[in-house]
């Protein structure tokens, strides 16, 4: 029972904050909505036995990535809502309607066809277990990720310099 209540609370938080990211005009408030969304998601990851991913979610997303977003907003001085005014357009209600339709169609498909969750060991999401698989079965994608991050670092430096 406790799990259902916790899931319901976090689902409400996620729904409200995801709408908030899109509907709010001020980008700083969008960012804060996104932070709340990431924390609620981390709780859901815990319910899915993904302890390590939940910790990484809070450290990397809510910590590093959102600080980078807020830093850029402050650096470019975009906190004022009048900076990028968004006019009322016909595409806005159409897009909201299509998004709603997408959710309804996917939910309908999901609810009619899926089987239930398998019983799991408690330790499938620990650092030990994830690390064991990351460095045995998944070592090649892991090394490719390191190369991707290296490319991202070099690219960010190249773009940040005025001229090389």
């Amino acid at each position: 029972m406790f799990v259902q209540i916790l899931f319901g609370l976090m689902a409400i938080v996620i729904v409200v904050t995801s709408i908030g990211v899109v509907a709010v005009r001020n980008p700083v408030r969008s960012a804060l909505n996104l932070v709340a969304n990431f924390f609620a998601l981390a709780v859901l990851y815990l319910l899915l036995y993904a302890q390590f991913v939940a910790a990484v979610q809070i450290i990397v997303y809510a910590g590093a990535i959102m600080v980078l977003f807020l830093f850029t907003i402050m650096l470019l001085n975009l906190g004022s809502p009048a900076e990028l005014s968004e006019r009322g357009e016909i595409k806005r209600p159409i897009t909201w309607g299509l998004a709603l339709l997408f959710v309804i169609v996917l939910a309908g498909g999901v609810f009619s066809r899926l089987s239930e969750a398998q019983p799991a060991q408690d330790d499938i999401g620990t650092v030990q277990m994830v690390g064991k698989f990351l460095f045995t079965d998944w070592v090649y994608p892991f090394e490719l990720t390191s190369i991707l991050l290296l490319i991202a670092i070099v690219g960010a430096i190249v773009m940040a310099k005025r001229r090389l």
Partner: protein
Amino acid sequence: MDAVPISWYLTLSAFMFAMGVTGVVIKRNPIVIFMCIELMLNAANLAFLAFARQQAQLGAQVAGQVYAILVMAVAAAEVAIGLGIIVAIYRLRDTINVDEMNLLKF
């Protein structure tokens, strides 16, 4: 403990993805567009972890979590590059309104 069906997680994930798509389409501030892309990547992560709980074997269950970690690494790289591009464009054009960035359009 396994009280919440996987379908609920997937519906929540679909909702987050739909909100991300909506934001990418209707927003004009590229930073908010990036936040909506993050929303979509997180929706994919939630779906990965939920589907991982449906697998019978241990290897497949952990594979979903490894995938989520790889997605996070890609998201971090994407944010670093994307925000760098936004800052560079702002220095060049003094605006970041996506409607005025039309050099590649013609």
